[in-house]
């Protein structure tokens, strides 16, 4: 009887949380024109072997009781539509031989991550890396891997992000990137960057979330002055990729998001 009560309570809580989460993304708000896709069709060339693969880093959520992967952890936000739509842009705009589908990478899966020297992580303001993941990520970055972080907002999520990142690099600061940083010029000159809002900001009268008023372009350098981690704080680039095909998402944000993503890849493949 006692067990049954616990099950019912848990189920109710889960339902309430799901509703609250969906409302946060605006899924149930009246007139909201964006609908998340869960069942993206697999492209015909998904099995092709290519030079580059869009790698999406998996991680356990912050304050997840047992630090297990949730059924749909924060790592998978915008997945896989953002990834695939971005890849289409990369294919069209550059000479990069890139796979049409993304690759979700689990740091606990041996040396798998080492095959993908460029990796994207969404919502690191919700991550909570284990010790072994911290170690693996540090090795990955020091050997030449590159990590792009995106879609975390405000001071609270920053603190959560830093709790894990400081364990990856206790001795390396996260610094603001100057305008002259090659990352912003390797292909496109990104002198006039601006905050890229997520769809939660629809109709985009306001472009920030929580207290993350200003977009922060930050990073962590290695000993040779090369960026290992590119930190996009207070912006939602993946949403811009994901909704670039929607007439309701402003083109100026989507264009900048593509340019940023492409520059970050080009930088990672040349530095």
């Amino acid at each position, binding site marked *: 009887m006692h067990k049954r009560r616990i099950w019912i309570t848990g189920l109710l809580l889960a339902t309430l949380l799901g509703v609250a989460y969906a409302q946060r993304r605006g899924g149930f708000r009246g007139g909201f024109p964006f609908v998340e896709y869960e069942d993206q069709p697999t492209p015909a060339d998904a099995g092709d072997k290519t*030079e*580059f693969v869009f790698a999406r880093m998996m991680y356990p959520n912050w304050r997840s009781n047992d630090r297990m992967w949730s059924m749909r952890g924060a790592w998978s936000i915008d997945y896989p539509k953002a990834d695939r739509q971005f890849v289409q842009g990369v294919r069209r705009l550059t*000479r990069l031989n890139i796979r049409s589908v993304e690759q979700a990478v689990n740091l606990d899966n041996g040396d798998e991550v*080492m095959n993908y020297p460029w990796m994207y992580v969404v919502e690191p303001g919700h991550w909570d890396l284990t010790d072994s993941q911290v170690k693996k990520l540090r090795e990955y970055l020091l050997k*030449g891997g590159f990590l792009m972080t995106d879609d975390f907002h405000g001071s609270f999520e920053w603190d959560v992000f830093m709790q894990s990142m400081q364990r990856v690099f206790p001795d390396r600061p996260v610094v603001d990137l100057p305008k002259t940083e090659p990352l912003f010029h390797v292909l496109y000159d990104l002198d006039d960057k601006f905050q890229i809002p997520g769809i939660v900001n629809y109709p985009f009268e306001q472009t920030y979330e929580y207290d993350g008023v200003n977009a922060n372009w930050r990073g962590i350098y290695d000993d*040779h002055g090369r960026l290992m981690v590119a930190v996009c704080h207070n912006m939602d680039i993946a949403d811009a990729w994901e909704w670039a095909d929607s007439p309701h998402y402003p083109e100026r944000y989507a264009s900048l998001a593509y340019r940023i993503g492409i520059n970050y890849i080009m930088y990672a*493949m040349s530095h």
Partner: protein
Amino acid sequence: MFELLFHHPLSVYRKGELVWQSGWPLWILAALIFAGCVVTALFVWRKTHEAGWPTLRGATLWLLQSSVLTALLLLLWQPVLSVATLKPQQNVVAILLDDSKSMAISDDGSVRRDLAQKALESGLLDNLKKRFQVRFYKVSDHLERIEDYHGLKTEKAASRIADGLKQIAAETGSLPIGGVLLLSDGADTSGGIDRETVNALKSRQLPVHTIGFGRERYDRDVALVDVQVPVRALADSRLGAQVILKQRGYAGQKATLQLKDADKVIGSKQITLAADGAAQTETLLFNSGPAGVRTLSAAVANMQNEDNFGNNALTRLVQVEARKPRILYIEGEPRWEFKFIRRAVEDEKTIQLVTMLRTTQNKIYRQGVKDAKELEQGFPATTEEMFAYEGVIIGAVEASYFTPTQQALLKAFVDRRGGGLLFLGSRASLADGGYSASEFNDILPVSVGDRRTTFLREKATVELTAAGRDNLYLRLEEDAARNAERWKKLPELADVQNPGPPKPGAVVFADAISGRGRTPLLITQNYGRGRTAVLGTGGTWRWQMLQPIEDKSHEMFWQQILRWLVSGTPGTVVASSTQSVFTDETRVPLRAEVRGKQFEVLPDGQVEARVTGPAGSAATVLLQPDPVQPGVYSGEYAAEQPGSYLVEFIASRALEQLGTDTIAFRREDGLAESYHTEQNRELLERLSAETGGKYWKIEETKTLPEEITFSEAGINTREIRDLWNLPAVFLLIAALRGGEWLLRRKWGAV
């Protein structure tokens, strides 16, 4: 025994001329011999037929009888030997004593110098004096006439035997010299007896008789035969010194081999000595260090009870160049290989990597350029732009991306400029990039086909070939065996391309082993003045990502392969000499190959060599154009003082300076004298044989004076020596007749 049978010494037969004294025509002799053989054959055939003997018996009898008849007919024609003989007391014999340091060596308790004196005093000199007048000379670093052969100091650290003999031949032109007697251990330090010396002696028909001193072979000795190091190297390069050594008496024992730069040990290894007399090659790896001249000394540690310690070390010079070669790397599309190659050589101070990355169809991202103008217009399209680099790497770039002019420029870059060109495997390279229909087809070390499916994103392991195992540029480990194993254990390549079969003359250093079998991976060849290579993959980056952070395999491989690419790229002036260390040799040949600004052959330039020697001495040598090789200029400098020399070659044309180059060399005295201290019998024998003399052992000199008598040199007369009365002839005839008799008896025909 010889003289008992043949009446005259062997030398009479060697030097004498056969003459038929009867004066009858030789054709009659031939006709008679022929007729006699025919008659004998008829006679024997009849007898044999009657007796019913087998043919073999008849033939044997015919042979014996014909031989006797032939011998008798030959004697009838009165054969004699005509031999030139020196007239008694009218000729001079030059006695040349080796006065160099090696003659003071004691072999088994007897000093070589003393043995030479003893040989003269034990009757040889008296016998010579009975027939000839004698003159004494001593030779060390120079020739000197002496009145008395006693009191030789044997202190000089050089034996220039060839120079001494040449001088005797020249200075005694007006004297009736009948022959030269050389008493020496043959340890010549001037490079041996050259053709010029032999010709000078031959033109005067001067026979040189030699008496050898010293042990011909040591029982216990370890000797460095040679040390081979690159004459030039880039700074901080990993180099190899190949030490060739021989030993006797220590087979299987351990020895320590060391390489020193001045006093600092830069390489060391324990070796196991090979079999007696066998040449053994060992390689010591070392770092060339910063720019400058390195004086390297390779030495094997002295062994217990070694007979000669003087040959355990050798010195060589390596000129470490200050130049920083620039390598242009063009990558046709973003690839991980590009990033990781750049990273691998980022800490490489001596090589500058300039890169072009085609990020989009119309955009090129440049890195490592010296200013905004460099490569602003894209890949070089002029000789001046192209030839400014010393190496070029072509990544995933299809042939059609380059204009015909650029393709021709790349070919000239290798052929004429002498640059290094490396092609990387990719989906747009080699066969897949249409290279077979381009200028690249000529310069590639492989025969690329037209099939466009040679590139596969398939993992592959790497294995060094035999050539690769010997190649120092592919050493990730110092030990060759461990290195080969290390290569096998490297993480798999991300992709692999079958480059096609290697061309004749190309060398395959490594193979890739993938699911579709074994294909050549790293292939190189020399083309014109330069070199080309193919690395059939774009996936070595996994060596960096899939190994521990501290592993430097990937960095080492790329740093070394890029050094290989440019280390041999010449400038407009390439100066050289025959060696870097001249031991007891003063003549230093100087050579320069000069090219114009477009690296065209320059036959009408002026080249001067400014030599700076020890203690600030200086000289200028004007080099002369080589009449056979256009663009090559040569000369010679006499480096009398031991020490280090620096030579700057300056090439110009019509007051315009075209380029400079510098070489270093070292002059050493006395080392050669203590190096080969065994008796060089081969040299003495060859000298005697080529001049008509003879090599003598000390204990066999009794007949030497008589031998000298038979000489064409000096004042001589011709002697006639009969041959008809030789006991050997009579014995031969008797043996032939006796043999026939015995055979007939055996066959029952007597």
